[in-house]
């Protein structure tokens, strides 16, 4: 919990990791990819405040103690959601697997929500693994990375027939939260890999599932906004938005937040630190203090304390059924509704 000026914020970090990207985990022959991936992540970290930058060695493999301190002791986070990313073609034991996350989730009960993942290209075997993970860990959410490389394939789409089999399995198994992360490759490579149209289709066809588009579809924020405003079950995952822009590009951050508040609305935006890319502390503290920097932004929706409470934790708590202490809840009627008028505006066009 974070307290400022008498206001109490329940903080759910809805997107964070516990990875091992050190050279001892690089697949022989794929070292360049493994190295390139973690260096790319490290470059993202450089967009945060200088005093929060880590040397590459620590960044490649941080410890359990680092994580517990940065996220919970210093980071104000009440509950953190582990989002696995496998990348087993590049990392021998996987970059950040369900099993690796489970070590911490089992050791610190109540601190973590343990999500798993699936990949439609794994067919029946993958479905079996998904079922096993759900029965063993009680997963309520999955993280999907559509750009993952697998046996010569450069990625997949949510609308692939096999992906629908997995989405059906999610419904059946009680998985309700589908976190989607787009990356730079897909099949075929001539298409825009960051296109979110497949999320649009899947969200329409699976209305009982919530689709949280991580990094708000970056670099396709506009396509994401136009899509999310029309789909009641599509959410904006703010990982990278706060971490990558609030400090480095405050003016663009204000504009992106304004756009998201306008199209998606404050009820469907969730904070995620993307730890270990960025520590949550400066993000939480900075966001609580944040407002539009000038009148130039007067035509964007206003940001209130209730807005921040929802984004920092209450929205994600609702998605995951996390009990929020009474002192951190909103009063009935507090907070403005989502951007319904604008959704109508789009539907009419």
């Amino acid at each position, binding site marked *: 919990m974070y307290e400022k000026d008498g206001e109490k914020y329940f903080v759910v970090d809805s997107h964070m990791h516990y990875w091992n990207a050190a050279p001892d985990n690089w697949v022989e022959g794929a070292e*360049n*990819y493994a190295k*390139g*991936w973690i*260096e*790319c992540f*490290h*470059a*993202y970290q*450089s*967009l945060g405040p200088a005093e929060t930058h880590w040397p590459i060695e620590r960044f490649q493999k941080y410890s359990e103690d680092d994580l517990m301190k940065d996220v919970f002791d210093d980071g104000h986070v009440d509950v953190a959601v582990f989002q696995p990313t496998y990348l087993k073609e590049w990392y021998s034991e996987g970059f950040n697997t369900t099993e690796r996350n489970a070590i911490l989730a089992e050791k610190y009960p109540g601190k973590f929500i343990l999500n798993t993942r699936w990949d439609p290209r794994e067919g029946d075997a993958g479905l079996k693994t998904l079922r096993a993970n759900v029965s063993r860990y009680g997963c309520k959410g999955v993280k999907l990375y559509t750009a993952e490389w697998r046996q010569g394939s*450069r990625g997949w789409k949510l609308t692939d027939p096999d992906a629908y089999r997995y989405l059906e399995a999610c419904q059946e198994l009680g998985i309700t939260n589908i976190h989607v992360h787009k*990356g*730079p*490759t897909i*099949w*075929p*490579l*001539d*298409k*825009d*890999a*960051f296109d979110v149209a497949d999320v649009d289709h899947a969200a329409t066809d699976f209305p009982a599932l919530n689709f949280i588009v991580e990094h708000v579809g*970056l*670099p*396709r*924020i*506009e396509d994401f*906004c*136009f899509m999310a405003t029309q789909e009641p079950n599509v959410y904006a995952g703010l990982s990278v938005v706060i971490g*990558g*822009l609030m400090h*480095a*590009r405050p003016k*663009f*951050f204000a*504009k*992106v937040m*304004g*756009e998201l508040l*306008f*199209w998606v609305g404050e009820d469907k935006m969730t904070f995620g630190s993307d730890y270990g890319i960025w520590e949550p502390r400066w993000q939480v503290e900075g966001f609580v203090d944040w407002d539009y920097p000038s009148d130039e932004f007067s035509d964007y929706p206003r940001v209130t304390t209730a807005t921040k409470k929802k984004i920092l934790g209450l929205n994600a708590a609702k998605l995951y059924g996390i009990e929020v202490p009474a002192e951190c809840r909103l009063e009935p009627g507090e907070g403005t509704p989502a951007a319904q008028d604008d959704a109508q*505006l*789009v539907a*009419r*066009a």
Partner: protein
Amino acid sequence: MSTILSGEAQILAALETVRDPELDEPITSLGFVASCTISAGGAAQVRLRLPTYFCAPNFAFLMVADAYDAVSRVDGVRSVEVVLEDHFAAETINGGVAARAGFVRSFDGEAVAELDQLRADFLRKAVMAGTDQVCRPLLAAGVQPAALVTLTLGEVPPSRALDRLRQRRAELGLPAGDDALLLIDPGTGARVGDDAVPLHLRRARTTRVSVDANAGICRGMLWHRYHARGEGEEET
């Protein structure tokens, strides 16, 4: 051109015409040109760099191919080598462009079409973002949104943003002359109806915000990666 440019300056000037299709900005001002040289015998050499090892290969291919074409057109250039560095698909892209193989042949089995469609999609985004750039000052000066419907390009005060919008529209084959309407659908060229103006302007603004935010992130990542300015890079 009346001024006499050195060989290197001519190469750089040619590279200034090459844009990142996603960010709609010259690869020079973005800092993507690590170096460009030309020998006494007319052998031009360009080294390109991108913000990450995993930048999307389709856009990377377009930039390398466009750079190759632009430099080839410079007077006195007898041979061209464009090398993309530090990228997962560098070998495929550099080899494919040098062999004039096109995208599908370069990425054998991984692509089904050339990149014209992709380029056009992003030009349409550039037109939307450019529409915001042109309209925002007009709105700030008190022009009512409804009045924009009938405004022609010739009636808009001259600016760099307007030139750029005209150029992007022309590239797409959309009307770009003085009597063309300012507000058009970038897909069809059709005029924007009175009722649709507020939404059109909002979409234009969102598209511009997205492109600007992406460019900001890319610049930050590139700086972390190289800690050195590129040829012709502009600080922002």
